């Protein structure tokens, strides 16, 4: 009886137990269902990530050529030795490789991705051959090539061609959606930056299956990296180099191009830098030394540096004055060597004065008094308008990054910024390209080019054509007529004749005796940094212009001096080396 009651109680407990058991079973089944059915796809993906490693292989960048297909930038394969860890003993392989190459390797070896190490870098071709001959004795070892950027053109081309570097955090954030990854190379300046999307090339990859020990089980998939497009520049390699040399150890800029197409044959900025070193990657100290150098070697002077234009700006005043009927071939202005205005006396550069001069002679002699007078008659607002009309103060749209535009001072600006009224003296200074006015060399080059074409404004460019991987032209950069400046024939004639006289009888005497008729203008720009900047810009032949040019030498003294002498050598070189070619 007592025992029955006891058994009853035990059975009761066993019943409870079986209910508990059902609850546990339910919980396990639900969890199991959740993992394998509801989240199955997510875990499948996780499991894929576990076993598959994708190694990107750096894309091969397109090359950059000058207009005659001389190489200015190209990728050259370098070779390194990769070892898939776990395929064999690392020490054993290391020993064998050392014996084959006959040199010591230097562990610890850098890891690349999971399961791979770089045994040796910078292999010579002989070493690559040695390794490949005995490949079967080196399980898990492979020679991998990777591209390194070379710039055979060197410093003269550094600003135009640019350089590449490792993508930085900011760029990566911006370009992540376009497939850029850490460690990728990207154009940093110049054409390398501007045409990045063409030059970039396509990545390759190797998808490998690895096990939990990081051992490579097999290669699932492989795609070679390749390059897509290369780029042909309008630059003339020899002219660019020659121009660079002509500047000697002076800082400055030279621009040479075709006024009727916008093609630039030379675009020189000095001092320059070695693009090779920058592409390879610099230490912080090296970089700081370069970027904080007082001579600013990284600045692409033709489009990124601002200077007072000096007398070169008189072309703008002359254009405005003639076009608006303030002067013509008959009007003479007397130059006693100075202009008195209110209590102030403004000197002409020639102490004794030019006497009575017409507009063409005033251009030729660069007579300050004439331009003071015409400038005052025009007034600051109209001067600025004429500058704009001729292409100063507007971005040219050149296919290079970082272009700057002129600073054109106005009455409103001065009152707002400097809290001072605009004095007639400010207009007088503006008339000879001094005072607050600052321009880029490219803008002044555009002014003379636009005179050469009698008002046809072409967009300047440095890229001529884009090629595909087979070397076929897929895109030709045609001249872009941006604007047509409509002026009276009289105005154009006056300007051209004046500029011809600059060389014949005026300040451009240094360029006399050339086999071709030149139209040009000198400029001497006073500046707070030291000696005057020397400008010389023009075009030739003056009757049917084919080439326009600009030379700027920082602190080169007056424009009739150094800049004009450099220009003379450029024209001589052109006539000797290129005339026949261009006439064809």
């Amino acid at each position, binding site marked *: 009886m007592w025992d029955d009651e006891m058994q009853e109680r035990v059975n009761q407990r066993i019943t409870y137990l079986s209910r508990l058991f059902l609850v546990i079973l339910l919980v396990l089944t639900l969890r199991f269902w959740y*993992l394998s059915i509801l989240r199955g796809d997510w875990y499948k993906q996780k499991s894929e990530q576990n076993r598959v490693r994708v190694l990107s292989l750096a894309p091969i960048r397109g090359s950059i050529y000058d207009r005659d297909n001389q190489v200015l930038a190209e990728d050259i394969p370098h070779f390194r030795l990769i070892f898939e860890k776990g395929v064999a003993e690392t020490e054993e392989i290391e020993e064998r490789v050392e014996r084959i190459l006959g040199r010591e390797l230097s562990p610890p070896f850098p890891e690349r991705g999971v399961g791979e190490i770089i045994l040796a870098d910078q292999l010579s071709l002989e070493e690559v051959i040695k390794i490949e001959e005995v490949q079967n004795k080196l399980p898990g070892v492979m020679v991998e090539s990777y591209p390194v950027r070379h710039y055979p053109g060197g410093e003269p081309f550094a600003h135009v061609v640019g350089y590449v570097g490792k993508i930085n955090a900011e760029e990566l954030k911006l370009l992540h959606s376009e497939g850029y990854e850490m460690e990728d190379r990207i154009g940093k300046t110049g054409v390398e930056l501007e045409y990045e999307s063409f030059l970039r090339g396509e990545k390759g990859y190797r998808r490998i299956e690895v096990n939990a020990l990081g051992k490579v089980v097999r290669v699932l998939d492989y795609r070679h990296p390749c390059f897509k497009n290369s780029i042909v520049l309008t630059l003339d390699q020899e002219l660019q180099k020659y121009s660079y040399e002509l500047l000697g150890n002076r800082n400055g800029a030279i621009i040479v191009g075709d006024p009727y197409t916008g093609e630039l044959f030379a675009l020189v900025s000095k001092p320059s830098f070695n693009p090779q070193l920058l592409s390879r990657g610099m230490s912080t100290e090296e970089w700081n030394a370069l970027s904080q150098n007082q001579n600013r070697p990284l600045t692409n002077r033709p489009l990124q540096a601002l200077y007072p234009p000096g007398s070169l700006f008189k072309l703008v005043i002359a254009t405005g004055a003639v076009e608006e009927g303030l002067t013509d071939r008959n009007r003479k202005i007397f130059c006693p060597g100075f202009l008195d205005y209110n209590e102030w006396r403004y000197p002409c550069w020639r102490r004794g004065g030019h006497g009575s001069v017409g507009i063409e002679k005033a251009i030729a002699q660069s007579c300050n008094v004439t331009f003071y007078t015409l400038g005052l008659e025009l007034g600051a607002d109209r001067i600025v308008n004429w500058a704009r009309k001729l292409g100063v103060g507007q971005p040219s749209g050149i296919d290079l990054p970082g272009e700057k535009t002129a600073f054109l001072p106005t009455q409103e600006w001065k009152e707002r910024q400097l809290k001072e009224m605009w004095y007639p003296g400010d207009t007088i200074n503006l008339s000879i390209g001094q005072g607050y006015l600052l321009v880029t060399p490219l803008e002044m080059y555009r002014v003379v080019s636009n005179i050469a074409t009698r008002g046809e404004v072409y967009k300047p460019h440095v890229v001529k054509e884009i090629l595909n991987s087979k070397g076929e032209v897929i895109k030709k950069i045609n001249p872009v007529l941006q604007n047509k400046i409509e002026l009276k024939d009289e105005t154009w004639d006056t300007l051209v004749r004046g500029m011809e006289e600059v060389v014949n009888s005026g300040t451009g005497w240094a360029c006399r005796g050339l086999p071709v008729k030149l139209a040009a203008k000198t400029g001497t720009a006073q500046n707070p940094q030291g000696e005057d900047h020397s400008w010389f810009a023009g075009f030739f032949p003056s009757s049917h212009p084919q080439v326009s040019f600009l030379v700027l030498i920082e602190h080169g003294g007056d424009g009739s001096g150094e800049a004009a002498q450099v220009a003379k050598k450029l024209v001589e070189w052109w006539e000797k080396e290129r005339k026949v070619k261009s006439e064809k």
Partner: protein
Amino acid sequence: MKSKAIVLILIALSLTGILAVYSVDPSRGEGWGESLFSRQIIWNFAGWLVFLVFSQIDYHQWIKRGWLWYFLMVLSLGAVLILGEGDETGSHRWLFSQSVQPSEGAKIALALFLAHYFSGQRENFDFWPLLIKSGILSFIPFMLILKEPDLGSSLVLLVTWLGVLFVCGFSAKKWAVIGGIGGGLLPLSWFFLEDYQKDRLLSFINPEKDPLGSGYHILQSQIAIGAGGFTGQGWLSGTQSQLYFLPARHTDFIFASWCEQLGFLGGMLIIGLLGALSYLFLVVAARSPDLEGKILASILGISLLFQWTVNIGVNLGIMPVTGIALPFVSYGGSSLIVNLASAGIVYNISKSEGWENWKL
């Protein structure tokens, strides 16, 4: 009927275990004697021999000698601590050049002892002295195993003792007291855990914290199970287990390996077989004509239930890693033989069962 069902389920489980070990055997295809798979087959033979013997011996014979088993158990566990041989995990669980694992035998020995101890003093059920004395006696082997350290097996002993208290009708009030003391001691026990056991607990709470370290097991096992989906990736496929991302894939995580290959369906097969076996143990207990059989069958059932649900719970990531193998399926001789021995005893009880008082 139930006796036959037990045998059929056991055969199915044995085969499942052999197949599961085969599917993850890294030395598959090598010499017969070398592979894990061949050893598992040999142990199955041994285990079935043990089953045959135990199923033929009247279970009263075992229970009668409860104290003998108890002393043998404490003796061998003591020997392990003194003479024990380490394995690759650094714990000392083995005797006789890694051939015998006394902590496995302890699971059955304690059950026999407690069945003897409790059935001999049924008038003291639900009294404090029995609870305390049995508690102390169980605590000794519990601590000896915990020192090896083998947290999993010691927990099985603890659950066996709690099971016998439950089955023998100890009142809710006493459970509250045990629970209170246990709950109070739990934070203290933290200081007795080995570092790796602490890591396991912490990484169970937050496996993402250190996915390559101690959280690795839990994550990889869930990935394997999840990646298996409904029908699995196919026999002998599945990268988690075949490429070794899943650790202990032939022992504690064999369930995950199995599910990666055969999916939810394959996994439910194992859960179904083990669930049915545990259920049959409880049915046998309920129908046993005497108290000895009831107690023994039910605590063996509780022990089995505890082991496989905890193992699968770990595999599914809802319990911390404790190091409990999946009964009948995981690779390993001692555990397989002991489990078949328990099943043999329950089979013997089932043969003598009555039909009265059955309701569930």
